[in-house]
């Protein structure tokens, strides 16, 4: 991963390397030029050395001839040596242009030295006259040497003139190059710096935008940052946070839904209880009155009336029980029978009630007051409108995995639209219901109790009758489900 620190280091490194390279190149070039200058100067100095030392030799020879002592001889020898060294160094100066002249030059020095030697030799032999002639000769050659030095200088200048001019031109060009190089480096640095700053600020901008999105509450946009440094790390962490928040929000929403469902069931219960309370008009007085009426009817010999009143009393008592209690199927079926007794008294022959109970199923638990509203529906919609009366079948079957309760009538039936309306709870209980509890209420409570949706089924054909089928899971012991 490229860290920002690394990037800064790289930028600084590039700058340093660039500067260093330029400095090195310039230094190298300067050194080269200086070497050239030195070479050139050296050439002239070497030639001058020849000229100077030959003159010195002549002077020393003169001294020696006029005063041949050890000291003057020594000095003469030193100057001769100096001339010889100068001559030896001439070889280095040779090139194609001056080879001829330089050879001449070198030979002339040789001749000069030979003449000097001869002069010394004659002087030592005492032939001063001849020695003096040789000295004159030597001094003449020395003059020639000086002249030749000048002429070589001249030709050197001519040979090297363009070279020298080139050097001058180059040094001028160097100035231009310096300025250009400086500006190029500056612009390059600007470019690098710009790209570098961009590589830092761009991800930051992206991150800021993403943060703004989050602040506005949009948690579903993934955060993408085109970078490979710390900022990308930050962005990844940020994205992670966004995902987590998103998850949390979903959880909260689900919980809220569950809560609202609970609330709804509570409301339903309260609604049922309210209806109840409306009908709880001094129940004890009613019980007592009904019992008294039952006794009176019995004493008066109206056996049927007495039984009917007992049924009404027990039905009333059952209905007054709290709704949030579970009951066994047996209890529920018993109350249903009592209710049907009363309805039989009302409809006499018009109502035929068939019961088919599977005894083994009666032990299971279920919410109270669930079957009675359904039977009421069957009576109200199946029997009442029909002048010829009708039949109601009530069956409880114990199947392997669940219990099936069927309530069937052969009344008017209903069309598909009505059935759909009923299922979605769009129909309110009508007058005539003893309990005041509608179909929708029953369905809801069954759903909530068993925690499943597929408990109630309706089969109906218009003009043929309606069949309500409850598929109840087998529940033995259950605490209050509210």
């Amino acid at each position, binding site marked *: 991963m490229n860290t920002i620190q690394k990037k800064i280091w790289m930028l600084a490194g590039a700058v340093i390397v660039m500067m260093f390279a330029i400095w090195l190149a310039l230094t190298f*070039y300067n050194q080269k030029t200086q070497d050239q200058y030195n070479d050139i100067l050296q050439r002239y100095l070497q030639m001058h050395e020849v000229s100077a030392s030959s003159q010195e030799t002549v002077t020393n020879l003169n001294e020696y001839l006029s005063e041949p002592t050890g000291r003057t001889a020594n000095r003469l020898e030193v100057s001769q040596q100096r001339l010889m060294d100068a001559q030896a160094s001439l*070889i280095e100066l*040779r*090139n*194609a*242009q*001056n*080879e*001829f*002249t330089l*050879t*001449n*030059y070198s*030979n*002339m020095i*040789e*001749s*000069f030295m030979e003449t000097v030697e001869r002069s010394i030799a004659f002087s030592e032999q005492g032939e001063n006259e001849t020695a003096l002639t040789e000295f004159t000769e030597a001094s*003449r*050659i020395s003059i*020639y040497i000086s002249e*030749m030095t000048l002429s070589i200088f001249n030709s050197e200048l001519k*040979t*090297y003139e*363009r*070279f020298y*001019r*080139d050097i001058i031109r*180059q040094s001028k*060009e*160097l100035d*231009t*190059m310096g300025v*250009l*190089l400086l*500006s*190029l480096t500056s*612009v*390059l640095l*600007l*470019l690098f710096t*710009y*790209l570098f700053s*961009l590589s830092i600020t761009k991800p930051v901008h992206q991150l800021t935008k993403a943060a703004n999105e989050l602040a506005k509450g949009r948690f579903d946009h993934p955060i993408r940052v085109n970078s490979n440094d710390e900022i990308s790390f930050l962005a990844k962490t940020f994205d992670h946070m966004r995902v987590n928040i998103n998850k949390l929000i979903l959880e909260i929403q689900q919980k809220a839904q569950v809560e609202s469902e609970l609330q709804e069931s509570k409301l339903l219960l309260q609604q049922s209880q309210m209806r109840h309370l409306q009908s709880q008009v001094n129940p004890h007085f009613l019980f007592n009155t009904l019992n008294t009426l039952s006794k009176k009817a019995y004493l008066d010999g109206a056996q049927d009336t007495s039984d009917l009143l007992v049924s009404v009393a027990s039905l009333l008592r059952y209905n007054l029980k709290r709704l949030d209690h579970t009951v066994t199927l047996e209890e529920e079926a018993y109350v249903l029978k009592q209710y049907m007794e009363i309805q039989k008294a009302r409809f006499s022959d018009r109502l035929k009630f068939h019961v088919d109970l599977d005894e083994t199923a009666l032990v299971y638990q279920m919410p109270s007051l669930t079957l009675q509203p359904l039977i009421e529906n069957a009576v109200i919609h199946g029997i009442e409108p029909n002048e010829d009366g009708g039949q109601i079948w009530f069956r409880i079957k114990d199947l392997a995995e669940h219990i099936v309760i069927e309530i069937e009538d052969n009344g008017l039936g209903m069309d598909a639209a009505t059935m759909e309306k009923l299922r979605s709870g769009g129909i309110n209980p009508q007058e005539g219901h003893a309990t005041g509890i509608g179909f929708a209420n029953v369905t809801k409570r069954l759903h909530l109790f068993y925690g499943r949706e597929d408990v109630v089924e309706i089969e109906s054909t218009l003009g043929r009758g309606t069949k309500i089928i409850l598929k109840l899971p087998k529940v033995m012991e259950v605490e209050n489900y509210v």
Partner: protein
Amino acid sequence: MRRKVIFALCSLCAVLGFFTVLSVNKVLHSEWELPSAVKTDQDRFRIVLITQELDTPFWRLVGVGAAKQAEQEGVGFELWGSYGNNQEDFLKQVEIALHSKVDGVIVQGNDTEEFQQLTRIKAASYGIPIITVANDVPVEKSLRKTYVGSDHYEAGKLLIEQLVGDMGEEGEVVLLGDLDLEYSQRLRLKGMEESLENHPGINSVYVESGSSDEEGAAATQQALNKHPNVDAFIALNVRQAGTMMQEISRRTELEPFYIYSFDDGSDASDLLMEGKLDAIIEQSPEQMGETSVEVMMQWLRNEVVPLNSEGYITDIRIVEGKGGLP
């Protein structure tokens, strides 16, 4: 915005980079290479051609021929010399050449004591061969190895023949010469005089003059005064021919005179072109240069030993002037 900035910076970089590269190229690229160094063990023969008349086309041609030959032979060659007959400078050059121990000296012969001293004693002591070119100095005096150039005696004869052919057997001719004649001029004179002996009808007068222009003019005046019937002039030295003709033209027409000279100077071809000179003996300077170097190399390489001390004669021919004859 970002794109624009990057684009602008990039293009600026490219432009600056281009110019920088150009500039670097200019700085690093040197137009002038230093002369190549030569190997120290390379020991070429060095030959010097020395003349006292560097300024004349004649000697320039000798130099060209010699340089050409030297290049062919692969030896070092240089043309030295003095300008305008500067005797002192010329001798100094010869001395320098000897002190420089060149391998061979080709020199314009100079019939003076100093010159002979140099060639006889100094050159001998350094063991340097001397070849005279164009102007000879007798071998007894100079100990030169050989001579390369025209046969001046023959040239004199040739010129007289031309004169007789132009003028006829009768007439008076003035021969104009320097006070101290070069060996070559003496040979020319000798050739002419001997040739004139065969033509008794021609009366010849020898007039001496100094080497300067004034003296030449004076000598011409004198000759014209003394010999009013003169028909022809022959200048031994082409330098004097110019002065002479100036002087004649001041007095009278040039046309009636037959004027001849020997070409070894600058004026000859000009005068010929102008038609003032009737004819000159033309030599072969380039051939002289070539042959002298060739002969010198033969000597240095021990191919021909000894060299023909009589000399190697180069071509001469008569060239007639444009102006036609009187």
